[in-house]
């Protein structure tokens, strides 16, 4: 990948990657490294401060916070990856097709995307999840919906300029199908930008998921989620401040990590910035 090599030179990217890898590792290894079952309640030991048997303390049900953080990483990552992958797929297709077809069709599609884009994503997610019910699938759907528009825009812009270029013309002359031209010739050209936006939007997705869970519209209990843990922490903030500190730090670490990667990738791919430092 020609994007990744120069990106690695940016310290921000490296640090971000380390943050993300740590969390991915925690999520993957949760069944082995989590000291307790994340849903196992021990009412006697509720609201224990950090230290001792419970490294990060326990919540209001007497569940181990560290174990829930580790397992909660799975939900955050799962929601972020699937929703953004869906958004890239759907948004990218919409953008490419719209740009490729052009004309009135393009105009209408892009106007719809503008409306979608200008609608505050948290409000949109809030309405969708509240109405469809708090559920993993609905959550992914809601977040994907908010992220479709930007990817449609990214995918469309290069298509507009590329479709007049020589190799596309040549392809058409050779009788290649539209689909083939779109995917074989245009896709590779926008990949780097999609990667940059993808990591930045994944950061947004993690935050949106946490925010929705915080409002009380997350994955159903007892599944641990960081946003849900923050909510629990907020409600118990006077009794057990650590409950909100750990998930808060976890969210911060993942979002910051993804943003750093995105930033580094952007610096590495932006021709105006490249080679100046």
């Amino acid at each position: 990948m020609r994007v990744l090599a120069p990106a690695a030179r940016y310290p921000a990217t490296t640090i971000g990657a380390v943050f993300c890898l740590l969390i991915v590792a925690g999520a993957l290894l949760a069944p082995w490294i989590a000291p307790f079952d994340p849903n196992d309640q021990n009412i006697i030991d509720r609201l224990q401060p950090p230290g001792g048997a419970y490294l990060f303390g326990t919540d209001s049900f007497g569940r181990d916070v560290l174990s829930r953080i580790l397992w909660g990483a799975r939900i955050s990552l799962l929601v972020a990856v699937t929703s953004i992958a869906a958004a890239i797929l759907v948004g990218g297709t919409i953008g490419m097709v719209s740009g490729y077809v052009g004309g009135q069709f393009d105009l209408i599609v892009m106007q719809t995307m503008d409306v979608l884009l200008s609608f505050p994503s948290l409000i949109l997610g809030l309405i969708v999840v509240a109405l469809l019910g708090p559920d993993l699938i609905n959550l992914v759907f809601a977040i994907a919906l908010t992220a479709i528009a930007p990817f449609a825009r990214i995918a469309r812009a290069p298509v507009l300029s590329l479709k007049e270029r020589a190799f596309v013309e040549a392809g058409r002359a050779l009788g290649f199908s539209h689909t083939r031209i779109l995917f074989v010739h245009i896709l590779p050209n926008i990949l780097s930008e999609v990667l940059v936006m993808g990591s930045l939007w994944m950061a947004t997705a993690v935050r949106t998921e946490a925010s929705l869970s915080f409002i009380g519209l997350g994955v159903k209990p007892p599944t641990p989620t960081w946003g849900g843990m923050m909510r629990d922490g907020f409600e118990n903030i006077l009794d057990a401040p650590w409950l909100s500190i750990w998930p808060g730090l976890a969210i911060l670490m993942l979002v910051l990590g993804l943003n750093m990667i995105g930033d580094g990738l952007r610096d590495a791919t932006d021709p105006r910035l490249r080679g100046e430092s």
Partner: protein
Amino acid sequence: MIFYIIRRLLAAIPTLLAVLTLVFVIVRIVPGDPAIAILGDRATPEGIAALHAKLGLDKPIWQQYVEFLTQSLSGDFGRSMVTGRSILSDVSAVLPHTIDLTVASLLVGAVVGVPVGIWAALHRNRFIDYAARLLSLIGLSFPVFVSGIFILMVFALHWRLFPVIGSANLSDPLDRLNKLVLPAATLGLVMAAYITRVTRSAMLSVMGEDYIRTARAKGIPWRRVVWRHGLRNAAMPVVTVVGLYIGILIGNSVLTEIVFNRPGLGKIIVGALNQRDYTMLQGLMVIYCFLIVVVNLITDLTYGLIDPRVKQA
């Protein structure tokens, strides 16, 4: 200019119609009956039927749709199904709070973000720059409810400098300001992070342009080059992005309102969702769309002021 505004407004009508229809449909296909939300514990088949008749929910769907459209388009957003209060009056009662918060956090964001962004750009790749970039990245990675809770704990509870309940008495400017400080700081820090980044990169790209080099070559003092040419040309992308971020701001204001107990549009939406208040939800969506159109319009008009050529990419 007036013609341009009218054209923009007309262009928003089909969008508004589409959104209205979509809202009407979404709100009705989902489970959850407002009559039951109202009756709660006491819902009996008899009571539900009686309430349906009273709320007009027993009418055919198309009739409800036509009534909804004609009313919305004539500027009548209707009444809340639950409280029976006028939606417009409910919204106008909380709108000042939302506007206060939005404007104040934009202001905080600009006052902090623009100078820091410029400073960082002028000291590119030096310590200042790295620090500004890292801090702004952390700032925009911090979920508002995390930073909000922290700020609340420190300033309202520990030091008791500000009140915990953010619902201000609108006719008392001092009270209004007092209760705005913490929420505006919370949201303002996020905005500051965004604005710092945009300003920095806008300045960097402008300062690399030929005319700046020419100006410097001509011996114009550095400070003047920055102020005269650099800033003016960097303002455009900053305004664009700030316009875009108003959406983020409105979204994040829901969380701020929850943490600081401020009244506002976000809290009304959450309430309407919980109560299955169809009419309220519909009215709010229409008003939201209207607000967004207005914000976009203002952003566009600001371009015109900064750059008379108004070239839109």
